[in-house]
């Protein structure tokens, strides 16, 4: 097979194939976001304008301004046109464009999610490898038992428990927010860890880190358990392969067999698992951010639901789904690069 010629072409076709699935999905997602406001019990005009009592003239005026007096298909196409130009609606409560609010809050969620994934990977992969090597031992059983508990964890309760113990009784970490109110500096990157360093204020970075610790643990718990379990079973599968036996028979040390031969191949399913955690992270962020008053998009959505800010829910749904689809596409592409077998 002419691999050098084939690789680039395949990559392109792979991308095209993914887009052929993604574009109809995006249209479907936009239809859901569009219909959401119209499915709610009550008058969408009143819901979107946020005005409870209005005269029929005022109603007609707003209805016209929002375009509700036009045919539904025209309304949808207009909505889609707006979305494609970055218009995701305007918040009823803050009167700010939804997309602006999203970009304001998104870095907080990204920062938290990245830390959580890092936490999960750094602890999860070694744990899984050790459990696989020591299969059946007390260490393996303890680790997998812990992983099962982590996997089953109601994280909203886990968060409360950690606040109670670590923040309440031990007084080690703060309870909520991203940084102590003592520090104030304009956001540069939106990532508090970087911004606090850039600000040059003494103690700011330490404060940012201490605010991150508990949310990171809470959000990272389920991915950590999933990654540890997945690494263990992938390792077990690879360790029983012929080439590993050959490597062992050649007299290579366990460390070399595991580190060089087995781990590389065991990582392929593990990387997929890590990629799949993106959606899990965002679902977890809803709970974690609510518990720790973390100003990210998860808390934003929960607050919008309880404030009945339907414009934000509508816009937020669509932006979040679009981001997840984009991230999944990137993960798929990276995966295609790592593992040539799936490009076909």
């Amino acid at each position: 097979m002419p691999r050098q010629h084939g690789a680039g072409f395949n990559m392109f076709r792979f991308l095209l194939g993914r887009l052929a699935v993604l574009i109809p999905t995006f249209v479907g997602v936009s239809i859901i976001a569009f219909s959401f406001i119209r499915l709610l019990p009550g008058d969408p005009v009143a819901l979107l304008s946020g005005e409870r009592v209005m005269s029929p003239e005022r109603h007609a005026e707003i209805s016209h301004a929002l375009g509700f007096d036009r045919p539904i298909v025209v309304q949808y196409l207009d909505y889609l046109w707006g979305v494609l130009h970055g218009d995701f609606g305007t918040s009823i409560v803050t009167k700010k464009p939804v997309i602006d609010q999203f970009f304001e809050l998104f870095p907080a969620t990204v920062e938290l999610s990245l830390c959580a994934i890092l936490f999960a990977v750094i602890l999860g992969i070694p744990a899984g490898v050790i459990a696989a090597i020591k299969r059946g031992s007390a260490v393996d059983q303890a680790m997998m038992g812990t992983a099962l508990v982590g996997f089953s964890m109601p994280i909203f309760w886990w968060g409360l428990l950690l606040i109670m113990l670590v923040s309440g009784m031990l007084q080690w970490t703060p309870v909520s927010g991203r940084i102590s109110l003592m520090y104030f500096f304009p956001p540069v990157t939106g990532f508090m860890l970087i911004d606090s360093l850039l600000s040059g204020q003494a103690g700011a970075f330490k404060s940012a880190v201490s605010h991150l610790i508990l949310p990171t643990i809470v959000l990272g718990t389920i991915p950590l358990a999933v990654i540890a379990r997945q690494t263990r079973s992938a390792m077990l599968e690879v360790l029983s392969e012929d080439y590993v036996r050959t490597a062992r028979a050649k007299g290579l040390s366990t460390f070399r067999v595991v580190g060089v031969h087995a781990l590389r191949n065991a990582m392929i399913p593990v990387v997929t698992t890590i990629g799949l955690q993106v959606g899990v992270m965002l679902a977890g962020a809803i709970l974690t951010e609510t518990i720790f008053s973390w100003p990210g998009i998860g808390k934003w959505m929960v607050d919008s639901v309880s404030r009945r800010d339907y414009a934000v829910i509508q816009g937020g749904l669509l932006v979040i789904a679009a981001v997840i689809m984009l991230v999944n596409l990137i993960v798929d592409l990276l995966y295609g690069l790592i593992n040539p077998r799936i490009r076909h």
Partner: protein
Amino acid sequence: MSQTAATSAVSTDPSRRARLAEFWYYFSENRGAVIGLVFFLFLVLLAIFAPWIAPHDPVEQYRDAVLVPPAWQEGGRAAFLLGTDAVGRDMLSRLIYGTRFSLFVGVIVTTLSLVGGIALGVIAGYFRGWVDTVIMRVMDIILAFPSLLLALVLVAVLGPGLVNAMIAIALVFQPHFVRLTRAAVMSEKTRDYVVAAKVAGAGHGRLMFKTILPNCMAPLIVQATLSFSSAILDAAALGFLGMGAQPPTPEWGTMLAEAREFISSHWWVVTLPGIAILITVVAINLMGDGLRDALDPKLKRS
């Protein structure tokens, strides 16, 4: 498997009994799975007999016994073994009644998403073509949202409450069953026994649900167990966010939401409902692991 079926011709349905015995053999080898099963049966009994077991009415408010600590702590009372909450309701009774809601959520959500998912998955995998494309695209759309966010928004549309929360969660879980069923059906469809049944004149309905489906059940059962525990977690999470069961329902997540403000002062109102959720979910997941090992022949070898 065929020789075991041939030798034990005494029973009416030998192959099924032999398979069940083989399944139980592998399942009972897994100690964790058996512990999970026993604990789960215990919860089922608690749920069924809650009115007789619970010492108090779960919504009765004892005004003279507000935030009483568990019996073994200073200030605890024997009448309230696990203490009382902020309006003087007995924690133990609420926790016992809570098993009813959690198991109910698990059963309903799993049934809804399993039945719907199987129907759509079999149709998609059997007919392929545009039917398949439409079904799978719709499932992709559902999967494009973080599950809890979609459930949250659906409940916002339908109105907060346990029933609506269950509907929302079932809808969000559906795609996993559709995908699994479809994949299994596609791999079974071209097997000889299916072709033979087709040649013998079996119709589409019979081929789909009587010939092919029973041979696709193993991964679906494992996924169903997983959904059962996830449904309990998600329903509790929605309750915690104020969108699931509404107070004064003794649902564990809702209890946690009400207890949040006592986090630093009264540990039992926060800790106990969470422990109840955790051990229930652990028990079900232990069973799920056992089921997977017993049903998945690929893992049986290793």
